């Protein structure tokens, strides 16, 4: 088996087999002309490529940063290319496998980044951060966890801190005469109340699977603390066989059986924002979702957010649980790595981009405007206007959390994450019992 890129790319196509038309399209050579690191334009400058996600709320601010950099550095040029979320996850993998990846690789850190590191695809930035301590000081230190693999830093934390919170529709609560839940008992008591009023207690995009996962993350943390998942993450054998896990899984199935989620939740997708639409149209009372949902509801929900219809809170405590109710889960940031296959010039351009534009004040202000809390320090003074209260609350949840855990599917390797998501979907479908769930998850620990 040779290692040259052509044969690997061919093999990738082969693996797609008879049905992988979509996959085949993904490994075609329709990448940007600057693929693999770009060409030198001379004069000490250079060209670099950058791939990231398309669509609001992020794309305009990503584009703005690149425009700003290109304007300020006439000798260098960064060419961006934007993809849809799910398409990107596969495109970046196939492109890197075929040595056609961009100079700058956008990602979520954690298990995905670890896999890049294992294949020597990304630059070790530890020394660079050592020499550029000023850059490191501008970024929240809690965001570096998911950028670190075996004690070394392989990515620059960028963009926003995104805790997952419990959103609720204040108007629906008012109409039904209910109070926001303060505990798991409250949640279970609210379920029949909303069902009687013909409102779904919770909105859930079950087909997307990671949306279901957020429930497991919070329930396990609230009942047993963050240590149980830490053991899973560390690859400890049989780590899922904790009584707290069984307890948490049973609670989830109880909620499903009590019709806690809207009818047809397992065919609702998050990509279409149908779950958020259920909340802002008053068809559902509550929704557990990432903080980025605020921007989507503000944009698509008419006057819902503006008129104060949207409420939010950290996930409530579970009675008798050991977890700290200040803990949260989510994305501690987004991450940008430099391809180890890029040319020296392209790497220099990327590092300059890292140390200047991506940590400047305009970058910080832009992400605040997008409705998010930047990973850059000292953004609190920018929280003004209509979104101020939300931003302040997200910031205090993120900074006040004793543990800000990374989403499980991002923290684990893609192989383990796929098994996890598959089993979670079956759990919500009542296709597997809690014990079966534990058994199949123990099977992929450390993989």
């Amino acid at each position, binding site marked *: *088996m040779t*290692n040259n890129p052509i044969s*690997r790319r*061919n*093999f*990738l*196509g*082969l*693996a*797609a*087999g*008879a*049905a*992988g*038309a*979509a*996959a085949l399209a993904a490994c075609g050579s329709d990448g940007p002309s600057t693929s693999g690191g770009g060409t030198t334009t001379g004069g000490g400058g250079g060209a670099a490529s950058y791939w990231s996600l398309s669509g609001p709320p992020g794309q305009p601010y990503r584009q703005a940063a690149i425009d700003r950099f290109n304007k300020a550095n006439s000798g260098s040029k960064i060419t961006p290319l934007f993809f849809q979320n799910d398409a990107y996850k*596969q495109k970046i*993998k*196939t492109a*890197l*496998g075929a040595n056609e990846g961009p100079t700058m690789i956008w990602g979520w850190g954690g298990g995905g980044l670890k*896999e*890049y590191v*294992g*294949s020597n*695809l990304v630059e070790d930035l530890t020394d660079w951060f050592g020499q550029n301590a000023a850059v490191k000081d501008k970024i929240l230190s809690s965001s570096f966890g998911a950028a670190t693999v075996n004690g070394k830093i392989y990515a620059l934390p960028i963009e926003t801190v995104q805790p997952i919170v419990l959103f609720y529709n204040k108007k629906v609560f008012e109409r039904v005469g209910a109070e926001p839940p303060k505990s798991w008992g409250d949640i279970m008591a609210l379920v029949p109340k909303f069902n009687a009023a013909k409102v779904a207690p919770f909105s859930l995009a*079950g*087909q997307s699977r990671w949306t279901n996962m957020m429930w497991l993350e919070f329930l396990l943390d609230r009942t047993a603390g963050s240590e149980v998942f830490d053991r899973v993450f560390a690859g400890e054998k049989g780590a899922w066989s904790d009584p707290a896990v069984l307890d948490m899984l049973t609670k989830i199935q109880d909620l499903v059986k009590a019709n806690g989620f*809207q*009818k*047809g*939740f*397992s*065919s*609702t*997708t998050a990509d279409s924002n*149908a779950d958020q*639409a*259920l909340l802002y149209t008053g*068809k559902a009372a509550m929704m557990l979702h990432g903080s980025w949902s605020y921007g989507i509801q503000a944009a698509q929900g008419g006057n819902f957010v503006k008129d104060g219809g949207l409420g939010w809170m950290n996930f409530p405590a579970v009675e008798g649980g050991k977890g700290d109710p200040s803990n949260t889960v989510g994305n501690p940031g987004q991450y940008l790595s430099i391809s180890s296959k890029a040319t020296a010039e392209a790497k220099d351009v990327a590092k300059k981009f890292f140390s200047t534009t991506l940590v400047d004040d305009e970058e910080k202000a832009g992400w605040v405007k997008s409705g998010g809390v930047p990973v850059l320090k000292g953004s609190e003074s920018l929280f003004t206007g209509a979104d101020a209260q939300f931003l302040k609350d997200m910031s205090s949840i993120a900074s006040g959390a004793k543990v800000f855990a990374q989403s499980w599917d991002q923290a684990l*390797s*893609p*192989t383990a*994450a*796929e*098994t996890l998501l*598959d089993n979670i*979907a*079956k759990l919500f*479908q009542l*296709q597997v019992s809690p014990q079966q769930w534990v058994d199949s998850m123990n099977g992929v620990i450390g993989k």
Partner: protein
Amino acid sequence: MALPAFVWFVAFGIIPLLGVLALSFTTWNGIGTIQPSGLTSWRATLSDPGLPHALWVTFLIMILSWAVQTPLSILFGVFLAARKRYRGFLAVLYFIPLLLSSAAIAITYKSLLDPNFGLGTGLGIEWLNQDWLGNSTLAFATLIFIVSWQFIPFHSLIYQGAVRQIPTSMYEASQIDGAGRMRQFWSITLPQLKYTIITSSTLMVVGSLTFFDLIYVLTGGGPGDATRALALAMYQQGFQANLMGPASAIAVILVLVGLGLSLLLRRLGGRADDSQLEGA
């Protein structure tokens, strides 16, 4: 003359196939180095309880979609074969689903069948608000319905052409013998369509092995794994779980199943030199 086709077939059919076979004996995450690992991938694939399930789902889709499509396609084909102007117009309408891509069809149906924002809510018809894609049985039935809706036009077209090939002298002779319409259909039309039925069935059966785009967009294999057919299982192993070795093993199984089925169907067709036009 056959050379260009042969070269094409080798380049895009045989060589990739051999590549997949080779990959199925390796361990590869899609981005790192490819490591030969003997039978590891095969062992993992064959011992995975997901494999028999995916085979079963694939088989069920194949049988059910064949059983729904074939009678309807024959009926439509016979109906459209008659040279009447309004039927020509209807034929154009029936043909529309064939012009749409599977992804577009899946997205459209997904929106129409949404229990909260779909057709039922829009038109105020309560019984339409079923959990079409969220309930295992219903999701499967919905999938069969959509597949049939999508492909019946194509097979009707094949049958229409075949029915028009049947010599009219046969019908005239049977009319003299006093055969009614039903009798003509069962004793002349259907036997004369034998080879067309085999061709169309082969296309349906082998085609159903590769249903991927529709299922991927419509249900993503869900709810749970209720609609996870072999092709989708292969994709999820390869491109979501980053296990290219087991994914290639599934691909090889898929090829073998497809090959076996089309050989079997050819067998059922009997000898090629049989005359179909006895007595015509």
